[in-house]
C-alpha cells in the first residue's frame, strides 16, 4: 500500500464510483457497435477489455490538476476526467457541438481543454513526447501537476516512445506512461511485436521505474498509478507502467479479428474480463447488490439513450466553417 492509512479495497463509495464509470464505458462502447452495425455511425474503435485499467488509473490521478494524453481506446480515462456521455455521442456522430473536434476528427480522438484532456491524432505515439512536454512545463512553472499518457503495446516500438521516455528520464519529469497491453496491434500478436518479455523492462534503458500489473485487477492498477503519481510529485521522475489485459473486440468496426485469432481464444479471454471480476469482487465485499446493479444499469441505459438521441438530432457543423481555425485570429502579435 502506498498510504498506510488508506485501503482502497475498503472504500465502498470510491469502489462503487469506479464501477459506475467502468460500466458506463462498457455500455457506451456496446451502444456504439449497435449504432455502427445499424448504419447510424461510420466507425467505432473500442475500449472493451481495458475499461478497468483506464478507470482504476484515472482514480489515482488528480482530476482537477493533472493532464491526460489518452489514445483512441481511452474512453474510460476521458469519462473520468469529465467528458459527458452526450459529448461522447456527439463525437461519435461527428456533430458540430462535439467538444473534441467539432466533428473534424474520427471518433475517439479525444480532446477537451477545460478538462485537461490533450488533443491527439491517428499516427500512434506522437502523444508520448507531448506528455514529457506538459510535464516539463509543469515542472518549470512549479505547478504540482502530473501528465498521464497512455498507449498500446504496439506503440512501444515507435521512436517517439523511446525518445519521450528518454527525455523524461534525463529531466526527471513528472510523467506516468501507461502501456495498455491488449496483446494485439490490429492483427499482429504480442510475440511478433516485441522480443522482450515485459514492455515494462524498457524503462530500465531510460533510467526510470518500470512496473507490470494485471490490467484486469483494478486495485493493482490503482496502486501502481498512485505510487507513480506520488513519485512524480516528489520529484522522483517518471514511471512506465505496463498493464496487461486483452482486446475483447476487433481492432475497429472495419476489422475482422476472426482472420487472425480464434473464437476459442477470445472466449477464453472474455472469461477473465476485468469488469466481471471487479463486479464479483464488489459483490463479495457486499458493496454491490443485484438491486444496486440493476438500478445502475437502468440509470446508465437512460443516460445513453438520452445522449444517443441528443447527438442524433444535433446539427453538423455548417460547411461554411470548414476554413475556420487554421490559424489563430490574433495573427503575429
Amino acid at each position, binding site marked *: 500500500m502506498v498510504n498506510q492509512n488508506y485501503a482502497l479495497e475498503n472504500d465502498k463509495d470510491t469502489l462503487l464510483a469506479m464501477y459506475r464509470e467502468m460500466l458506463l464505458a462498457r455500455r457506451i462502447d456496446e451502444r456504439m457497435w449497435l449504432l455502427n452495425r445499424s448504419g447510424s455511425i461510420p466507425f467505432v474503435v473500442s475500449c472493451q477489455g481495458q475499461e478497468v485499467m483506464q478507470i482504476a488509473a484515472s482514480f489515482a490521478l488528480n482530476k482537477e490538476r493533472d493532464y491526460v494524453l489518452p489514445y483512441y481506446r481511452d474512453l474510460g480515462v476521458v469519462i473520468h476526467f469529465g467528458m459527458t456521455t452526450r459529448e461522447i455521442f456527439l463525437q461519435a456522430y461527428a456533430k458540430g457541438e462535439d467538444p473534441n*473536434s467539432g466533428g473534424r476528427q474520427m471518433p475517439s480522438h479525444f480532446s477537451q*481543454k477545460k478538462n485537461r484532456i490533450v488533443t491527439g491524432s491517428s499516427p500512434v505515439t506522437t502523444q508520448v*513526447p507531448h506528455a514529457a512536454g*506538459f510535464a516539463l512545463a509543469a515542472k518549470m512553472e512549479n505547478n504540482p501537476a502530473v*501528465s498521464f499518457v497512455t498507449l498500446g503495446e504496439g506503440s512501444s516500438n515507435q521512436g517517439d516512445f523511446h525518445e519521450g521516455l528518454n527525455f523524461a528520464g534525463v*529531466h526527471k519529469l513528472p510523467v506516468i506512461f501507461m502501456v495498455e497491453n491488449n496483446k494485439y496491434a490490429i492483427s499482429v500478436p504480442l510475440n511478433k511485436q516485441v522480443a522482450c518479455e515485459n514492455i515494462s523492462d524498457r524503462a530500465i534503458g531510460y533510467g526510470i521505474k518500470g512496473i507490470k500489473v494485471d490490467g484486469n485487477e483494478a486495485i493493482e492498477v490503482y496502486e501502481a498509478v498512485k505510487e507513480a503519481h506520488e513519485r512524480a510529485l516528489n520529484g522522483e521522475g517518471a514511471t512506465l507502467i505496463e498493464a496487461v489485459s486483452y482486446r475483447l473486440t476487433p481492432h475497429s468496426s472495419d476489422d475482422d479479428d476472426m482472420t487472425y485469432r480464434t473464437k476459442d481464444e477470445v472466449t477464453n479471454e472474455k472469461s477473465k474480463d476485468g469488469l466481471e471480476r471487479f463486479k464479483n469482487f464488489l459483490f463479495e465485499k457486499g458493496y454491490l447488490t443485484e438491486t444496486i446493479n440493476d438500478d445502475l444499469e437502468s440509470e446508465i441505459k437512460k443516460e445513453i439513450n438520452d445522449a444517443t438521441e441528443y447527438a442524433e438530432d444535433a446539427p453538423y457543423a455548417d460547411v461554411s466553417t470548414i476554413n475556420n481555425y487554421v*490559424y489563430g485570429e490574433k495573427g503575429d502579435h
Partner: protein
Amino acid sequence: MAVLTYIQAVNQALKEEMEQNEKVFVLGEDVGKRGGVFLATSGLYDQFGEKRVIDTPLAESAIAGVGIGAAMYGMRPVAEMQFADFIMPAVNQIISEAARIRYRSNNDWNCPITIRAPYGGGVHGALYHSQSIEAIFANQPGLKIVMPSSPYDVKGLLKAAIRDDDPVLFLEHKRAYRLLKEEVPEEDYTVPIGKANTVREGDDVTVITYGLCVHFTKQAAEKLEQEGINTEILDLRTVYPLDQQTIIDAASKTGKVLLVTEDNKEGSIIGEVSAIISEHCLFDLDAPIHRLAGPEVPAMPYAPPLEKEFMINAEKIEQAIRDLAEF
C-alpha cells in the same frame, strides 16, 4: 544602433524575448553551455540557467514533440534543430501534430512553438548540411514558414514568431550567419509574419525571392543599374502561407518576372509563386515567368567546384535579369 550579424540578431531576439516573457525557453542539442554549434544561443545559458536553456538528448522528434507539449500547456518554446537537414525525424511531429492542433481541436488547443533550423549551402556542408527543406513543409495549412534575408528582419521576425499563437518554422540561412551584417535597432520591434517586403523599387524586371538569394539579387541589381536596368526586388520573408496580393502587385508592375530559389526547381516555393502569377497576371506579363533554381539533384555536393555549381550567386541572377530585360 549597433551593427549586428545575422546570427547576432538571432541571439538578440532570443535574449530579449526571454527577458520579457518567462514562458519563453529554448531547447535543442548543444544550445546550453556550448551556446549552439553556430552560437545562436550564446550567453543564454549563463543568463537564464539550465531550466530555460535546455540541452536535449540527440533526438529530433523529441525536441519538436516535447516543445509541442510544452506549447500546448501554455509555454513559448523555441526549439532548435541543429541543421535543417536533421529535421526529418521530427516531420511527423511538425506536420501531423503542430500544424493540425488548432484545426483538429476546433480552436480549443493551440501550439505556439517556434522551430528554428539553419538551412542552405555555400559552407562546405555537402549533402546533409546544406539542404533547403522549406518545400517539404510548404503545403501544410496551420504552419507558417519564415525565412529572413537580413539581420534586421531576423530580429523582428523571430520576435514575431515567438509571440505568434501558431507554430512557426523559422529557417535561417547558415551562410548568412556571418556574411550579412547591418544596423539593427536596440529597441523592441517586430516584423509582421505573412507580409512580403519590397526591398528595392524598379520598373524593368521583378525578382521575387527569399533568404540569402535576396542578398545576391541586391548585388546583381546594383550592378545592372549602371547598365540602365532597374530591378524591383520582392523578398517573400514568409514563404508559407504566401502574401498573394503583394506578389501579384510586384509581378504586374514590370510584367517581367524572375523567381529565384536555392532549392531544387521542381516542387519548390517559387513554383507556387509562379502559379499565383499565372492565375492573376496573365495579361500583365510581357515575358514568360523565368525560374532560377538549384539543379535537379538530391542535394549539394561537397567538392568546392561542384558546390559552387549548385549555388545561386549574384552572377547567375544578373545574367537572368539581363536576359529578361532584353526579352
